[in-house]
């Protein structure tokens, strides 16, 4: 069964990292065979939200959920059950303590090779 790990970062403590620059421990975890895919996102300031207002498309600068912590990345993992996914999340969280990880079961997923 697949789970999505949504990693939320705290902008104050999360160091700016450039592409390719990743915590070596986290990079190693992401190499594992049970990790189906992952992506890192640009900071929340770069977000544009598309919504509907008065039946017209409305564009807003910034993320949809306005909170201090921002969605910084997404990892899809394969696990036997929730405990398996939670264990992986805990491992990642311990490597980078500034991150909180929301674990959600995946309903459906398509993955077109990168």
């Amino acid at each position, binding site marked *: 069964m697949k789970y999505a790990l949504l990693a939320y970062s705290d902008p104050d403590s999360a160091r700016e990292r450039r592409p390719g620059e990743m915590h070596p421990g986290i990079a190693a975890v992401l190499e594992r065979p049970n990790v189906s895919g992952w992506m890192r996102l640009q900071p929340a300031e770069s977000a544009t939200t598309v919504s509907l207002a008065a039946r017209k498309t409305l564009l807003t600068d910034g993320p949809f959920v306005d909170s201090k912590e921002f969605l910084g990345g997404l990892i899809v993992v394969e696990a036997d*059950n*929730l*405990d398996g996914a*939670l264990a992986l999340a805990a491992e990642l969280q311990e490597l980078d303590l500034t991150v909180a990880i929301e*674990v*959600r*079961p995946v309903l459906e997923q398509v993955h077109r090779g990168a």
Partner: protein
Amino acid sequence: MLEDVFRDHWGRVLATLVGFLGDIELAEDAAQEAFALAAERWPRDGQPANPTGWLITTARNRAIDRIRRERTLLAKTEQLERERRDLSQEPMDATAAFPDERLELIFTCCHPALALEAQVGLTLRTLGGLSTEEVARAFIVPFETMSKRLARAKHKIRDANIPFAVPPEHVLPERLDAVLAVVYLIFNEGWGGGRVDLAAEAIRLARSLVELMPDEAEAAGLLALMLLNDSRRAARFRGGELVLLDEQDRSLWDEAQIAEARQTLERSLALRGAGPYLVQAAIADLHTQERRDWDQIAVLYRRLEALTGSPIVTVNRAVALAEIEGPAAALALLDDLPLDSYLYFHSTRADFLRRLGRDEEARAAYARARQLAETEPERRFLESRLNDLTPPAAGC
């Protein structure tokens, strides 16, 4: 009568069905059908030789019928196909031994990914066999609220695939702690009301845990603790008034339950237990002795303090210290504890102050305690303590 029989079988039957069907709701519906059928047939035809087996087999057959029906209707998924294959290989024998999977079920229900209130409700519903309505009444929430809460938890268990398993060795201690915490919470909820006998429910659950995990010292420790506290239940009130331990009529204590508690305590000690429940049980046991060994009690409270780091334990240790070294030393121990919203902190302080003859301060502390009291007997008790103090000097 039949209801009692059902209560004894419910958790066992449901657990096996959940293990088999992989879904709590489906298992509950099937179990309910089987119990309804039993209520109709057993009084007429007599109870089967193996009631648990009969109930499981009947429920299982009902569930299979239903899955088949739905499968043809909705062209159900592979999973059910697999289940059907599994079924055809197994003989449908009511006398066959079914695995006891209550432990798997309790670890599922008390999974930390569920909200604590859902864990508590679900445990009472699935293992305790209380109806949703009884669970709602026990926690004084509307039926609809409890029903939604339980449904949501069951859906999360299904959708997120919370495992139906006893956790592996490396996480077992913390997960067992979570289970014991739920059981103890149910017990303590039982002290307040008397709506549904939650204390008795918690004791039943703990007995099952001790039976299922005979090597876990803390499970035995918790059972001993609850048995001891509960054994004094009949003596805690006299004509609706709270009666302190020293003034309780010991003939009202449940001797059989105290004996069971002591046996359980021995067992926990033999397992080299040293956890917080066992220590609390040992303290409770010392409190039931005719002459209380305050030195020993103080030592155990100190150990409990080290284990839990809880300031509430410090208040209890102060009570023991007051007996050994007097109220002045005990009062000093209470200084600066962050417990302003804790009733017993204030009532204990008030008692020390009263014994030191500092009546004005005692009055203020009792008054604060009374503000925090949640039940009428507590309020009246504090009221009577206030009245026993010398009245404030005229003009004050």
